[in-house]
């Protein structure tokens, strides 16, 4: 046991590295021509001798997967090796029909890259291609293996192409790790290589974490089963606390693989160093070494879609948007795409940004609208902004008209006309209403006149209410001020 003052001299720093798997958005699997859209399919309905690993079958590389993997490696600023190859990773599990996974080992597709995170470079050690495994289905109420008398195997996911991205241990907090994964997800979505859906498992993340003591690297553990951004942050925070407590009490962290239990909020030991698999990697003899054509690399570089960071810069530079607005709009690729589409159609990036962030997102959330399927709102938004600018409706009415247009898919102008929502700016009409409101609210008038300015807003609200929100607020304000002045 160390004494308190010794402990207090220790400088403890979390050291985190991530391994992220993304499913590539190819139509067919990595080594056969079966389709990849396994979600919701009947079990074992998109399989063939190759992805089932039937005796005698042989893999043939999907060139499209190679292109997407190259695009990812280039977007992560990796060095592309001119010759790469596949290895077999051998282990027994029922969802792995060949009992080996075709993966890459000593010569990955890309190495030594980085991804910038708020100005800090997070090193990318390697990017490589591999095939996915199938899934076990347990016939229990929870769907978990505990208590199952037998398990079934669904091979539909077998052979779906994945890229594995391994970072350097450059991340120093759970929050930073989470932000990194979000940024990486945004990247793969932007360049169209993966849909990055964590819930459906098309983006999966494992972490290696240790605590360095006075700059000396500690023993690391590997954390698995973090299935959401929140889980990444929570699991790593838990693990930092656990390791720190061990170190502070003079103990030693054990090198092992740990399982994050999201419901209990803890990690538990899965297997120790001794039980670690020996994967017996060796070069895959069924595939030839892969020579990477320089021209192909250059073509992929030339046709690289806009990266998230470039898009954010463009919004700031060309549209004058602020950091906060940009961060909301870039929270998903879909929203950013919708924003760009709106601006193309409407112009006025600042107004569009406001409308999307506040009104649209609220309505979309309420109505469970998918952003990808929300392009129909563009003409509505355009019209509403015009109506507002022309003074046909006031701001409040514009918002409710937009909401109704989105929900009922009716033209905003139709709604305005049908409901008679045109703004009333006629002073005489408004003055009549103001007068009657003042006479009905003598208390408020008295309290305003005795110096309580808040009463003004109350009276203003009453007038707006009396006009069903249609009155032009600036006219109301002006008339109300005049009338009150005349009373004093």
């Amino acid at each position, binding site marked *: 046991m160390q004494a308190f003052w010794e402990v207090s001299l220790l400088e403890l720093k979390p050291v985190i590295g991530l391994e992220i798997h993304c499913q590539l958005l190819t139509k067919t699997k990595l080594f056969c021509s079966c389709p990849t859209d396994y979600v919701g399919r009947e079990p074992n309905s998109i399989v063939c*001798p190759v992805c*089932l*690993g*039937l*005796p*005698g*079958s*042989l*893999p*043939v*590389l999907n060139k499209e997967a190679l292109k997407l993997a190259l695009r990812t490696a280039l977007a992560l600023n990796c060095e592309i090796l001119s010759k790469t190859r596949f290895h*077999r990773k*051998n282990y*027994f599990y*029922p969802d792995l*029909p*060949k*009992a*080996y996974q075709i993966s890459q080992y000593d010569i990955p597709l890309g190495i030594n890259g980085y991804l910038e995170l708020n100005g800090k470079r997070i090193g990318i050690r390697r990017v490589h291609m591999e095939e996915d495994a199938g899934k076990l289905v347990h016939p229990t109420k929870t769907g978990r293996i505990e208590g199952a008398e037998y398990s079934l*195997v669904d091979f539909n996911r077998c052979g779906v192409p994945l890229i594995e991205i391994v970072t350097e241990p450059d991340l120093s907090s759970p929050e930073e790790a989470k932000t990194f994964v979000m940024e990486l997800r945004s990247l793969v979505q932007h360049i169209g290589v993966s849909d990055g859906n964590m819930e459906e498992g098309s983006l999966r993340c494992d972490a290696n974490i240790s605590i360095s003591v006075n700059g000396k690297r500690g023993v690391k553990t590997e954390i698995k089963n973090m299935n959401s951004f929140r889980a990444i942050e929570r699991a790593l925070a838990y693990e930092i606390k656990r390791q720190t407590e061990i170190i502070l009490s003079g103990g030693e962290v054990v090198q092992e693989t740990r399982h994050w239990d999201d419901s209990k909020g803890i990690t538990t030991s899965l297997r120790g160093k001794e039980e670690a698999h*020996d994967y*017996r*990697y*060796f070069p895959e*003899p*069924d*595939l*030839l070494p892969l020579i990477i054509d320089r021209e192909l690399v250059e073509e992929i570089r030339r046709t690289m879609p806009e990266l998230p960071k470039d898009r954010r810069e463009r919004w700031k530079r060309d549209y004058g948007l602020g950091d906060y607005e940009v961060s909301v709009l870039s929270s998903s690729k879909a929203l950013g795409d919708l924003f760009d589409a709106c601006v193309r159609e409407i112009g006025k990036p600042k107004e569009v940004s406001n409308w999307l962030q506040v009104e649209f997102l609220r309505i979309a959330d309420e109505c469970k609208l998918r952003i990808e399927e929300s392009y129909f709102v563009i003409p509505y938004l355009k019209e509403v902004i015009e109506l507002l600018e022309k003074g046909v409706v006031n701001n409040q009415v514009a918002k409710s008209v937009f909401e109704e247009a989105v929900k009922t898919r009716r033209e905003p102008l139709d709604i305005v006309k049908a409901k008679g929502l045109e703004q009333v700016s006629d002073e005489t009409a408004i003055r009549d209403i103001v007068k009657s409101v003042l006479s009905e609210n003598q208390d408020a008038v008295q309290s305003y006149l005795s110096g309580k300015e808040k009463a003004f807003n109350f009276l203003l609200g009453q007038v707006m209410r009396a006009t069903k929100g249609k009155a032009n607020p600036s006219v109301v304000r002006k008339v109300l001020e005049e009338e009150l002045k005349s009373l004093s």
Partner: protein
Amino acid sequence: MELCDMPAWKLKELIRKGDISPEDILDSVFERIEEVERDLNSYITILKEEAYNQAKEIKARLQKGEDLPLGGIPIAIKDILCTKGIETTCASKILKGFYPPYDATVVERVKRAGAIIIGKTNLDEFAMGSSTENSAFGPTRNPWDRERVPGGSSGGSAAAVAAGETILALGSDTGGSVRQPAAFCGIVGLKPTYGLVSRYGLIAYASSLDQIGPMTKDVRDCALLLQVIAGKDEKDSTSLKVDLPNYLEACRHHDLSGIKIGIPREYISESLDPSVAEVMENSKRVFEKLGATVKEISLPHTEYALPTYYIIAPAEASSNLARYDGVQYGLRVKGKSLRDMYLETRTKGFGDEVKRRIMIGTYVLSAGYYDAFYLKALKVRRLVKADFDEAFKEVDYILTPTSPTPAFKLGEKIEDPILMYLSDVFTVPVNLAGICAISINGGFSKENLPIGIQLIGRALDEFGLLKIASAFETETELQGCRPFGR
């Protein structure tokens, strides 16, 4: 001579002239099977009814004037090649009940060429062995002497061709599995250049060494069958894109003047059986008579080839055979847990030799041993290949015995794996180098056992191999010798 003892090219002639029909050939072949199969055990599955059905179909296609290179010719398929809807066992209990949903590329190609598949032949389990004794379906016996083995692992195919139980056969050769049984049974066996024939549907033993090869009654048939099975297949990434020559053309020229043949001194040691040494001497004289010059050469890394093979092949096998876990197909022995199921299934499903190689392979790929064994073996493999590259600067072909002895007796070597492995000492280097070689009958021992000679050629020089083999065969008239029906 009975039809079943005739080569395919002759039968084709007879069919073309209208002298016989495909059914006549089947009658003859099945009559022979009836006669000898109980003793020989060449087949695991015999497809008599299916064969006659196919014959009808082929006859109709021939009558329509379709040009079928193997039209109406019976062929036996080593039971390591997938056949759609026909049980494919690899002579292993673990694949009992495995009916592939697809045909191997070579099977597809011989079918398209009009061949009639008459059965699946016996082999050493997963092609691991040199005697066809390691079969879950019992050993195959040598038609020349039933106390002796037919060689292996394609022993069933070799015995069937020699005995007239088929006309043509396909085998697979990982370290000599086509050539050594061909030699033991007095027939022709070709190991093509790695990549010339698609491996799609060949149940893998050692993927970087496996090749499918023709096993035939003479060299001309070998050319005929190779023509059908060779060529690029998009389903096999390791298959080569090559312009195929007309292999039958190779069998027309018998002048070997200007051709240089080397005999490696490392292959002619005192341990060579005297009858084999005599055949080698004779063969040398025949080639000289045909106009070739024969000289001694050296392949200095020969002694390392066999140990290298027994690291690389088991390493790949340990991975290739890991899929037999009882989950998806074949044998499943239930267990209390997943681990138990794996253990029980694989313990009961695999024979001793297969287990031995899986264990060796697992060991040499393990962390801490990989560099010392597997990586080292890959380096030696390159040296073995370099030996051949050097030799082919000096000579055009290399002549060796196919195996150090004629067919040995059943049980003679089965208890001593190393002794058994030595049977392939002359064939294994060819697989390591990825080049091509053919085994043809070179003569007979005093006990009237056939003795094979091996001719090794440069990568993709099958044409040249067939040419000199055909010249030798024509000169010696040895290939016409059959164990029965004379």
